[in-house]
């Protein structure tokens, strides 16, 4: 992977752009397994990802900002995943959602022949969200974490303990 920065790089501009990026994270329509259902539930009425402007699921990797790896990575899907990640326009981020994407989850055993133990063996991961499957709130928390990573500030600051 060849990384070239922007042609013009100004600190303040970068800050500003990152602020905009953090508030408009468009995920890719890419559901793998069980966690994809929870991902769908997150976009649905009760949890409503749209509040953070992140409900614009784009099916084409060219137009989205981050990929939610929601499920087990088998050896057959790994090259597909890599291709899709490559085809995303930078800046791009990856959110490993669920134990399978983090480490293979419950599908790792001695003598297994088909599961890649963690998506970070293929592509760089920015945020890990554990759980099997993680609850929708966890996905929202993961997105907030990604925003924090971009802006350096947390959106809903955790209130200080008063007692």
């Amino acid at each position, binding site marked *: 992977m060849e990384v070239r920065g922007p042609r013009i790089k100004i*600190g*303040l501009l970068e*800050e*500003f*752009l990152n*602020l*905009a*990026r953090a*508030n*408009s994270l468009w995920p890719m*329509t890419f559901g793998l397994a069980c966690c994809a259902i929870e991902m769908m539930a997150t976009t*649905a*009425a*009760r949890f*409503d990802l*749209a*509040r*953070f*402007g992140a*409900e*614009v699921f*784009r*099916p*084409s990797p*060219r*137009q989205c*900002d981050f990929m939610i790896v929601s499920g087990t990575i088998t050896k057959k899907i790994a090259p597909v995943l890599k291709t899709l990640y490559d*085809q995303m*326009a*930078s*800046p791009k981020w990856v959110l490993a959602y669920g134990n399978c994407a983090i480490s293979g989850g419950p599908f790792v055993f001695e003598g297994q022949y088909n599961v890649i133990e963690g998506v970070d063996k293929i592509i760089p991961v920015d945020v890990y969200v554990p759980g099997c499957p993680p609850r929708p709130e966890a996905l929202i928390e993961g997105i907030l974490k990604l925003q924090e990573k971009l*802006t*350096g*500030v*947390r*959106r809903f*600051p955790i209130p200080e303990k008063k007692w």
Partner: protein
Amino acid sequence: MIKWFKRIYQEYFYSDLLVVFSLGTSALFLLLVILPLIYLLAKGAFELGLNYWGKDFLRLLLGIVGVLIVVFGNALILVYVERKVAGWMQLRIGPKEVGPSGLLQSIVDAIKLLGKQLLRPRHVDRPLYLLAPLLIFLPCLVTMVVIPFDHDLQVRDINVGIVLILAFSALTPISIFMAGWGSANKYALLGGMRSISQQIAYEIPMVLSLIPVVMLSGTLSLKGIVEAQKIPFVCLQPIGFLIYFISAVAETNRTPFDLPEAESELVAGYHTEYSGMRFALFFLAEYTNVFIACALATIFFLGGYKGPLLPGWVWFFIKTYLLIFIMMWFRWTFPRVRFDQLLNFSWNFLIPLAMLNLVVTGMLVKI
């Protein structure tokens, strides 16, 4: 300074910085660059004694500014409104956290898209691929020239306004097809194919439904048509209005006629391979086309800027946005039609109906 910003941002409201920054920069840009430029140019024009041309020049400059504000403002508003309307219809809130009740969401999206890498796949047909997003943007601006927002609020009243609009809107399918073909992508190609046959199929009923309007008003200028409406033409031409509106929905590729970008079949349709700002231009063109289609419906059938009490342009925008809202309502209610159903609906039903409408109008007018 950044630290200071961060503190504000953390302590007060998350998006306050965004408000200040985006509004501030745009206001600064307007104040420091555009307005003095216009002033200088206009002054120069007058001083040179080119009164005849000078007036037009001033009109042109003001027109450019006005049209740009309408085009970009409309897209920003529509993106927000659409997401909010979708939210209301779907038991949820929609954008909320970015800015006060999510108002800054579309601005933030635009800024983000500005900072996104522009990718060009290796195998594309380069000239077509690069020209397509430019060309799709062109009819949006040109059509704005002849739209009368108010009695005097019009860039230029061209006496063949309708023909001009029809001619330039024919560029849209061409550029969509250029995008589809140039991308060398199979989904994009299928999307482009679909798009072009859809747009030509609905072009005809659209034109046929406009001819009675021309008959009744006896002019091709848009302002003339508005002025000719003692009562809105929708009362005289209800079928014509319906045909026009259905065709307009189809021409702008909105659900239930959004086949060229049908997500469940063709991924993202003709703009599958476009990223960042190139994709944004397609988006912008789509929303501007929606606005133009509804604005034209307002002008032709709903009496344009005419209305009691309120100033004309307010009426114009109220009527237009009402129609746009109906389009959104369609979008979040109906499933997508199938492709052959879509084409045959036009050829077998709408076109004969539009012809019948024309004949009946012709007869009634003569009697």
